[in-house]
Structure formats: C-alpha cells, structure tokens
C-alpha cells in the first residue's frame, strides 16, 4: 500500500470511528430546586420550625422545653429528632389531609407539601415522581409523606 493510500485509509477510519451518533435527547431531568437553602437549622430552630410547619402556630414554650430536654439528654441526635417528628405527627391535634382528599387532587397535595416544608414548588420531575408514588403506593398517607419530608436533608436547612 502506498503512503498516500495509507493516510487516506487512516483518515477515513478515524472519521468513521469518531463520528458522533445523533441522539434526540430530551435533556437530563435533574432537579436542582434546592430552594437556595444554605444554612443549617440549629436544634431549637429545627424543633420550632417543624412545629410551626405542622400546626401553623408558634410552638408553646412548655412543648419546646420538653422537646429540648429530650434532645439534650440523649446522644444519638438523629434518633431523637426522629422521635420528635413522630411525636408531632401522631398528635391528635394535627389536622392532616385525608386519603380521599389526596386522591382527589394529588398534584395540589404535592405542591402544598413542598411549599409547607421546603418552601418551594416542586420541579416537574419531582411532581411526576410523587404523583406516580401516590398512585402506586396505595397505602401512603399524608402522615407518611410528611414524615419523609421532615426527615429529609433539605428540611434540615433553611
């Protein structure tokens, strides 16, 4: 093979192997709505905000005092935060959306929940994800969903 033919073949080979495949991509659906949260809530803030988010009013001093006492009396803070969140969620004073209300307008429930706890709207991807979960997981209640939101990382920031 002559030198010229060799180079022509080589260039053709390179073009053939490096040719970009045409992909009709819809783009990466990566939710990035973190609500610009940068600051970690401190312990008292977390408890106070959690109470206000759930009950719509400021936490009474005696309730805060009890929660704080439990918090500083046990070393595994995540365990205690979990207990505090659970305690609030099982309170008979808590007014939770019923299963039928959620089923009637899942989209509104999802938006409300993001607004209530994360102070932002869900992205389209997040809305779609939660809507599918609420359809597939028939036994998911408002209490369960609230628990997931209140124990997620984003909720620990403001």
């Amino acid at each position, binding site marked *: 093979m002559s030198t010229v033919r060799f180079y022509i073949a080589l260039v053709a080979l390179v073009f053939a192997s490096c040719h970009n495949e045409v992909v009709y991509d819809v783009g990466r659906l990566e939710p990035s709505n973190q609500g610009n949260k940068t600051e970690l809530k401190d312990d008292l803030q977390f408890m106070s905000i959690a109470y206000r988010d759930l009950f719509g009013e400021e936490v009474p001093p005696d309730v805060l005092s009890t929660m704080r006492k439990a918090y*500083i*009396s046990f070393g595994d803070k995540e365990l205690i935060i979990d207990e505090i969140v659970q305690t609030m969620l099982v309170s008979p004073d808590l007014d939770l959306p019923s299963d039928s209300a959620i089923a009637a307008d899942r989209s509104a429930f999802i938006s409300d929940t993001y607004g209530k706890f994360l102070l932002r709207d869900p992205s389209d991807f997040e809305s779609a994800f939660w809507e599918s979960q609420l359809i597939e997981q028939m036994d998911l209640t408002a209490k369960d969903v609230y628990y997931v939101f209140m124990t997620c*990382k984003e909720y620990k920031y403001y």
Partner: protein
Amino acid sequence: MDRRSFIKKSALGAASIAVPTILPSGRLFAATGSRRANHVVFCLFSGGVRNLESVLKNEGNLMPSMLKGNSSISIDIAGSINSMPSSPLSKTLQEYGTLFTNIKFSDGPTGHFNGHTSALTGQHTNSNLSLRTNPPMPTVFELYRKHNSPVHAARNAWWISHSNNLYPLLNHSSHPDYGLNYAANQIAPNPFFGWDVSTNLRHELEFTDDKASTIKDLQAYMDSNFKKTYSLNSGVVNNADDREEMVAWMTEMQNKRVTGQLNNPWSIPSLMSGDQYNVFFTEELIKKFQPELTVVNLFNVDVAHENFSEYCNALNRADYAVAHLWDTIQSTPGMKDDTVLIIMPEIGRNLNANNIIDQNGRAALDHTNGDPMSRDVFCMVIGPDGVVNHNAVNTDLGATVDVVPTIADILGFRQDVDISLPGNVLQSAFV
C-alpha cells in the same frame, strides 16, 4: 452447585484467605493486648467527696455497703441520715477488691467539670478548659472504640450522666484523630425518663416491613435531590439494628414511667434520690445491652455547698446505690464474673467550711480553693476473684488520671493508645 455459583464461592473463599480484614477504624486488626475482663463499669462517685467523710470515717461509717467497719455515725447528724435497706451484698464492696486511699486530683482547678474531664480523658486540665465545648483530648470512650474491633460499636460504650447540663459534652472530644466517630452513647436518664418527656415524646409511627421499605426509598429519593454536603452534628451514630433496640428500650422505660412502675423501684422508705435513680437506669441499661464500657456519675453529694448533714446523707444513699449496682452486675448474664467496677470521686472538698450552717449546726463545704483536702480522693477497683486482688488496701500515691490507663489495660488496648497518657495503670489492684 452450578458453575457460576461455584466460581463466586471460590472467589469469595480465596479473597477471604488472601485479604486481611481492614477495620473501619483504619486498623488492620483488633486491640492487641489481652483482656483482664470484658466489661468495665466506672462509677464516678462525683459531686465532691472528701476522704474525711468517706474512707477516713470522721463522721462514722457513712458508707457501710462499700467500706468495712461499723463505727457509728456522729450523734448530731445521725437523725439526718435516712435509713437504707440492708446491702444486697454478703460482704462490703471493699472486700471484693482493692481500696486505694491516696489518690490525688493533682492538677487543675478543683471544679466538677475539670474533675470529670480529667477522670474521663486521663489528662490533666487547667483553667482554660471550656465548659461549652467537648474536651480537647480524647475520652476513654473514644480510646476504647478506636482501638478495638468494629463489633465494639457505640452500643458498647455508654456515658450515663446525672444531669443534661454540661456533662453530655463528655461523650467525645474535639481531637482530630478521635471525636464524634468514636463517641459513646450518652443519656441523662433522669430528665429523659422524666414524666413530661415520657408522656409526651413517643416513638409511635410504626411502619410495617413493606411500608418501612417504601419510606426508606422515598427518603433516599429526597436526599438524592439535595446536593449539599451533609455536615450535621448528628451526635453519636448507631447502626440501624442498635437504634431499633434503643428505641425499644426507651419505649419500655417510658411505658414503665407512665404506668407508675418507676415509682420507687428499690422500695427505699424515704423514696429514691436522683443518684439512686441514675444508678437504677444504669442497671436497666446494663441488663439490656451488657455494654463493655459504662461510665455513670452521681452528684447529690454536692449539696454539701449548703448542707453538711445532707451531704453525709447523700453519701450514705450513694453507698447503697453502688452496692445495688454491683449486685445487679453479678446477676446479669454476660456481665457476672466478667466485669471490673471502678469507683472514684472526681474531686474532694475544702478542708475549711464556708459560713452556711445546717439544721444540725454543721457548716457547709465548698471545693473551690484547691487545698490538699479538695485534691485527695479514694478509688476502689472491684472485680472477679482471680482477676482483682480482694480485700486489699493500697496507700501508695496514685492519681485520678490513672483510671483511664487502668480501663485501657483491663480491656486490652493500653498498648495501642498512641497518645500520651500521664497516668499509670493501678497495677496493684490486679492478681
């Protein structure tokens, strides 16, 4: 066995032979020393106890469950000493081990937090010690957890503090090579299992297996959408199984509280003191978890600042509590005959009284001038026959910083500790 399964198993077998296990602590192997016992309970007989009222029995034997001798209590204060039930032990604690009568809190201000920090880190402290942050040098919990195998998880190390003020800080240090990853579980059971917390804070969301799995997946989804570095001070970290056991235990205690089962469980005629409840909860914890390293502190004797007779009364109550603790250890499978109990006040009290006079005309005692009396304490090392020298008294000079190296020696990791510990192992306690 099909070919794929065989190859997988063979590969696993080969790997297990060829690759030594690297522990999460970064160590290749577990602690290298042999153990004298598999459990240590360190009772900080705290609050400030003078040798005069304890081992020297200046007011008579105020600690009849711990100390030999039946010298009667001074007549003027005898009426202020509540009667305790008979000791559950067949002989005094002193006879189950070695009593050290000449232990010094040799350096640093004679305050409770300095005393505690010194006893729990094995390091001397000074007036720069912050009351707002974790101590700078590693605690005995961190030394234990770092220099042992991963099976010695947080559930094996407990710091049971009398109050939730300051003392919770002592479950780990800020030392860069130790710290939170090696912390002890900490609990202040008196406030934690108080009426208000027990009746109001409950772990009541019970997810069934399927629901639990769904919740976990949803939590993972939510966290995957939040890209911020997770740098929470989440406290000591327990694994999921241990957490579950802890929640079960907490719920059991809370249920007992709200149903009245914790109303004077030791049947003390004058009701139980805070110290006695703290030891009671320590016993419950020991029965549940059989930890390898438990530290519990008492504190009621600090009433001495304002009432000398009540100080003596608190000493008498603490004495009964510690005997009760040893009795429980000896009836707990896994702990019986395999536990060393160390008892030591963190500091003493001043020689000279302040000007507060109690109902019996006795003057109260502070502990803040750093005189020799406020630095002299005793120490008792109690343990199984054949491990600990029984019925022995040692008058040699020792130090409160000796306890940490002694614990390290008992649990077999003394030679693995690479930071300097100024104290010495209380060698003469051991056979």
